[in-house]
């Protein structure tokens, strides 16, 4: 596949909330089969950008090109229809419904005589493609673990054959093993040729799967890194200085460990 033309091309998008400009002239490109991590401190504008892409908010200025065409993303439905699926941080699953009902919620086959068998088959197919470990698609979501719920949410976002999936803090609430499963899942989705935008605070997870790491700071682009970039560079870009609390602490720890090693 050619990676020259991005699926999603955000060109100098700005978003103002009254006098506050949450985003100013932000650029972002996502290619097919690429994981782009969006990192930044609190208030950097990550969530605002995600919401603009999900169609929840509209950009004040700038252009969003999707597959070469300029799009407006006026509503969540419009974004979904275009092929931008968003998995929100709280997943938005109905705990009292089973896995199949959750995956197909709002997209049921045959509204007046639900086609349970076809829905179940499609659900299994999606989950198997993700090599998901869901024991039974007829068990209610309340009985699933955090990682399994994340899987269901991602499977649901894949239902409409999106081109881009946005994951908002996919590993924030998960344990070590479950985090690894979700990261595997992200790689499998990438291997299917989808573009992925992953918002995360966890540098380790970001480094593990991201092809590019886009740093936002105070609503502006503050550098693009790869997983090979050093932690210091990344943290520097996120906090806006190479000399700050975090780097000082690291320097101190490093010195300590050096000094203990010398002993």
């Amino acid at each position, binding site marked *: 596949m050619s990676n020259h033309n991005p699926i999603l091309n955000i060109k100098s998008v700005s978003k103002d909330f009254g006098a506050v400009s949450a985003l100013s002239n932000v650029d972002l490109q996502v290619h097919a089969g690429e994981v782009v991590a969006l990192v930044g401190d609190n208030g950097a504008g990550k969530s605002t950008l995600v919401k603009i892409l999900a169609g929840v908010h509209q950009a004040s200025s700038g252009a969003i090109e999707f597959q070469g065409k300029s799009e407006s993303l006026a509503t*969540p439905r419009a974004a979904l229809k275009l092929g931008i699926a968003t998995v929100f941080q709280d*997943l938005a699953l*109905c705990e009292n419904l089973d896995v199949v009902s959750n995956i197909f*919620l709002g997209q049921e086959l045959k509204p007046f005589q639900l086609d349970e*068998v076809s829905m179940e088959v499609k659900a299994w197919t999606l989950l198997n493609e993700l090599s998901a470990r869901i024991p039974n*698609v007829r068990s209610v979501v*309340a009985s699933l673990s955090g990682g399994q719920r994340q899987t269901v949410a991602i499977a649901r976002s894949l239902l409409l054959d999106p081109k881009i999936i946005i994951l908002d803090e996919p590993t924030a609430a998960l344990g070590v093993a479950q985090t690894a499963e979700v990261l595997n899942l992200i790689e499998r989705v990438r291997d299917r040729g989808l573009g992925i935008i992953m918002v995360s605070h966890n540098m380790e997870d970001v480094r593990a799967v991201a092809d590019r790491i886009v740093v936002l700071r105070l609503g502006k682009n503050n550098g693009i890194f790869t997983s090979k970039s050093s932690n210091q560079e990344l943290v520097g870009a996120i906090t806006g200085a190479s000399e700050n609390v975090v780097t000082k602490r690291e320097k101190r720890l490093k010195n300590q460990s050096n000094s203990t090693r010398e002993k």
Partner: protein
Amino acid sequence: MLTKSNNESSQASPLDRSDSRVNHSDDFKGMIANFFGRIKSGDLGSLPVIIGLIVIWTVFSIMNPVFLSSRNLVNLLFDSSIVGVIALGIVCVLMLGEIDLSVGSMSGVGSAIIGVLWVNMGAPLPIAIITAIISGAIVGALYGSLRNRLGMPSFVSTLSGLLALLGLQLYMLGRTGSINLPYGSSMVNFGQLMVVPAWLSYCIAIIPAVVIIFNGLRSISKRQRMNLSPGSKKLLFIKATLITITLLGIMYYLNLGRGLPWMFTLFICLVVLMDYALTRTQWGRFMKAVGGNAEAARRAGVNVKKITISAFVVCSSLAALGGVMAASRLASASQQAGTGDVNLNAIAAAVIGGTSLFGGRGSAYSALLGIIVIQSISNGLTLLNLSSSFRFMITGAVLAIAVIIDSLARQSRASHGQA
């Protein structure tokens, strides 16, 4: 590569049986084990109500043998139909975690509309009935809009509706306060006399089995075609046979008396219709989703406001229909219609039958089971010549017990990781 290996494994075993960590019990023994496992984790279903019903019937039949006579049971079914229809509407609003406290008054208005339009003004009966139901729909739409636009808790809006509708009922009935329906009219016969002929009642008893086997076989062959575990044909036939034997027994016993009332048949038809709507249509799925997690449903593209309005409309319309049936049962539209314990009985029936007050869980059959319990208590106490004071106290206690069971089962489900 990945999908290929998946295909290979799925051809070896059905799609939903590829995970070895899950116990799949397809045989009869496994089904029983599953059943007890569910009970232990707090997924009680309709078990408490069936046990309760057996206890109640045993006690009353010991105290007065007339209770279990087929004559009395036919009367019980006549009486159950009215509040049963109202309870069916309550199931809808409870599914969303809302409540409608005005169903009693709404049914009173429904019966008053029949009296005024049909008897006093001479309008054709179908038009009077349709007017009553439509007025219910309008009231329901009003409740729904108040909830959606102003965020008014349904508890408050329907409580004020209770009083306002009662006023409307009294106003319509005028100074006399009561309008008699003509005896001998089909309307009154329907509420007091008309029963299904014996041969037809046996035919009706066979319908569920036919439907179960037809749908079951179709689903089995479709699941086989789609490479899912098909389920057992033997179980299907066992289930159908058991249901048919039970229903034929009931019909035989009822036919020893007057037989199956048409009014109760209407109620059963509505229950079946509602069950289909709640379990087999997108609307029903949305109802459950909104009741479980309204925000998640909204983000999934469900129009939550529309679903809320639809629930209130269905509830109030069924309440008005219940009022129409009450008028035909009592042969009058009076100030007493829909007052007293009608309201609470309808809500109690839905909750006792197993619909949760907390939203997201429930079934149309809970209205049927619940109203049989409530009506049995009321009927049994009347047979014992106890005054309505005792009836109120005991019904109140039963409702409290039902809600306690609901709350406890909910906590147990939460601790066992069930919804």
